[in-house]
């Protein structure tokens, strides 16, 4: 789970990391009250999860209340587009009003995970305020990367090296790194990134931004993380997330229902190869119960983009016939007579095909992914072709 800046700041504060004074606003009417508490000049910062705010007008300085309100009006409730958001942008629900810090230098400090070597890594750079990847490419000598021993934590010599490259006193760096390490380990973070970590004119270290990603697999042991949960902007994804269904909304016309993440990705790829892009990624998983499966179909069928459904089930623990009967019921209930391509193998496949034959769902069966993709393309083209004759019910193959 990627946190917003204002959520990350809560965690930084909890673990003793110095942050710049700031208050959160959700309404223009709250600005006056909060802005005066923070004091001017202040930075108005759009709270979106994607990066690249600064260069896209998402972080702007206000010298007085009128300016703050004017800036807020251009941001709040609107979609902000940055190089890292989807092309339609991300809606700005909240703003952070942050005291402007008199910056002497900008640094970079982060703890992340090196998945190749299965260790945490401390990354420190004397160049903050820019993308660390950019620094890594252009000026790698400005970065120090230290693999951290999982069981021992950061060691003094590693703190020393980080302090050296950043030009800060050892003691200050030690306190800060220890705080970040505690946050990283105790909250089950995948990433804790402070960029920029600034040194102000008085020589104090202040975290000016907070990028924290929490491990979703660890949610069961962090009741306090539930409060951070914000669902996807896409209403179908939101519904899926709430029901624990693995679903990603895409742009195409073919709704996919697959059991297995790898198979679901391969199905998407096959449809893209056949020039009939998927409307979604959906992994039913092996152990889904009837309710969950029905919910998944309902979500899929309520997507107006979906003109064809591609059902790809390799039956094992999850039987094909169970899925087929639930799908038929869901289609009836939705009232949408969408043609179906069914690729069914494994346990219950024969029974499933019979169920489809007996239903009034327009369908064809496929014996491979590429065969299924081609048939989905045919259906999609007929759906687009306004002059086509209506499809016959119960078609088999």
């Amino acid at each position, binding site marked *: 789970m990627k946190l917003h800046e204002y959520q990350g700041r809560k965690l930084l504060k909890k673990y003793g990391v110095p942050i710049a004074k700031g208050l959160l606003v959700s309404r223009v009417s709250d600005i006056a009250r909060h802005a005066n508490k923070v004091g001017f000049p202040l930075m108005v910062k759009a709270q979106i999860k994607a990066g690249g705010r600064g260069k896209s007008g998402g972080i702007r300085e206000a010298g007085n209340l009128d300016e703050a309100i004017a800036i807020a009006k251009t941001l709040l409730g609107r979609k902000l587009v940055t190089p890292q958001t989807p092309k339609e942008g991300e809606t700005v629900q909240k703003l952070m009003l942050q005291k402007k810090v008199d910056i002497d230098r900008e640094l970079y400090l982060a703890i992340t*995970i090196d998945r*190749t070597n299965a260790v945490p890594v401390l990354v420190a750079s004397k160049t903050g305020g820019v993308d660390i990847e950019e620094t890594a490419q252009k000026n790698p000598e400005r970065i120090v990367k230290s693999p951290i021993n999982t069981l021992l934590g950061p060691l003094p010599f590693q703190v020393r090296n980080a302090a050296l490259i950043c030009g800060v006193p050892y003691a200050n760096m030690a306190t800060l790194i220890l705080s970040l390490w505690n946050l990283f380990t105790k909250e089950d973070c995948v990433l804790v990134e402070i960029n920029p970590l600034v040194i102000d004119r008085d020589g104090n270290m202040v975290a000016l931004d907070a990028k924290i990603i929490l491990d979703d*697999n660890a949610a069961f042991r962090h009741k306090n993380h539930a409060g951070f949960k914000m669902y996807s902007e896409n209403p179908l994804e939101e519904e899926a997330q709430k029901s624990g269904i*693995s679903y990603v909304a895409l742009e195409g016309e073919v709704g996919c229902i697959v059991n297995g993440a*790898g198979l679901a990705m391969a199905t998407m790829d096959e449809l*893209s190869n056949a020039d009939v892009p998927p409307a979604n990624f959906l992994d039913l998983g092996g152990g889904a119960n009837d309710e969950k499966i029905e919910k998944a179909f309902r979500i899929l069928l309520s997507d107006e983009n979906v003109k064809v459904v591609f059902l790809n089930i390799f039956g*094992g623990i999850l039987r094909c016939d169970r899925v087929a009967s639930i799908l038929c019921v869901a289609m009836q209930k939705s009232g949408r007579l969408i043609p179906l391509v069914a690729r069914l193998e494994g346990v219950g496949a024969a029974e499933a095909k019979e169920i489809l034959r007996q239903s009034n769902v327009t369908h064809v069966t496929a014996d491979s992914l590429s065969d299924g993709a081609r048939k989905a393309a045919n259906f999609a083209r007929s759906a687009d072709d306004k002059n086509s004759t209506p499809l016959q019910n119960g078609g088999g193959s």
Partner: protein
Amino acid sequence: MSILINRETRVLVQGITGKEGSYHALRCREYGTRVVCGVSPSKGGQNLEGIPIFESVKEAKREHRVDASLIFVPAPFAFDAMMEAIEADIPLIVCITEGVPIHDMLKVRAGIRAHPNVRLIGPNCPGIVTPNQAKLGIMPASIFRQGPVGVVSRSGTLTYEAVWQLTRRNIGQSTAIGIGGDPIIGTSFIDCLEMFEEDPETRLIVLIGEIGGDAEEKAAAYIAQNVTKPVVAYICGVSAPQDKQMGHAGAIISGGRGKAQEKIRVLRDSGIHVVRSIDEIAEQVQKLLLV
């Protein structure tokens, strides 16, 4: 020969009394695997259709020689179960569990270093099958056939797809291993490639990868230097959007890294046959085996 497991492998099932554990322990035994005992704390002394259950791995080992442990323990307790098996020096540990926290896996990897003779497979994996000999995990038994192709994959369902295609063409498998879909796992592609290269029964290797991480790129470099047997690869997720987790915890393109196209390019540059569609795997394998 095959790799990792055969009809002699004596298996202990951790989490044997749970819904998943009990169901699959029996399916594995049906397949011919020597499921000799199980562990479920507080259920010691019971048995599952004749399979004796113990309180702990230590207790189980007092009465049974154990070559491998198969873990079906739920995510919150999987770390402890893996560590219990590791500390007991069980040579092969297969953890099926999905949803293990990444920090737990960092600790497992740190903890396993003191036990160089222990191999962990998974977590979040379907397990291993050596056709006609043994099955450790949840793979559907009926699709397998004994033969010369070694299969190693990050995806369970794509393993089934590839195996099914091969079996239908009468091309059998030596061993099929699902290494798991998580970002941090116990055994890599390279570990399996090394074993397949040394296995006299394996004549060709099928490698199935996906977006996220750099395991495929590392494998490509290893293959170029160390693997003489032909390798056929398939990488899924070419059409996956960035920064979205596609089911598997490890299947995510982060900061522009881990794209399928890049993996395919690197694999091809190292002389590996990469098929564009999963449906082409068996055909490509057939061509290479006839040569």
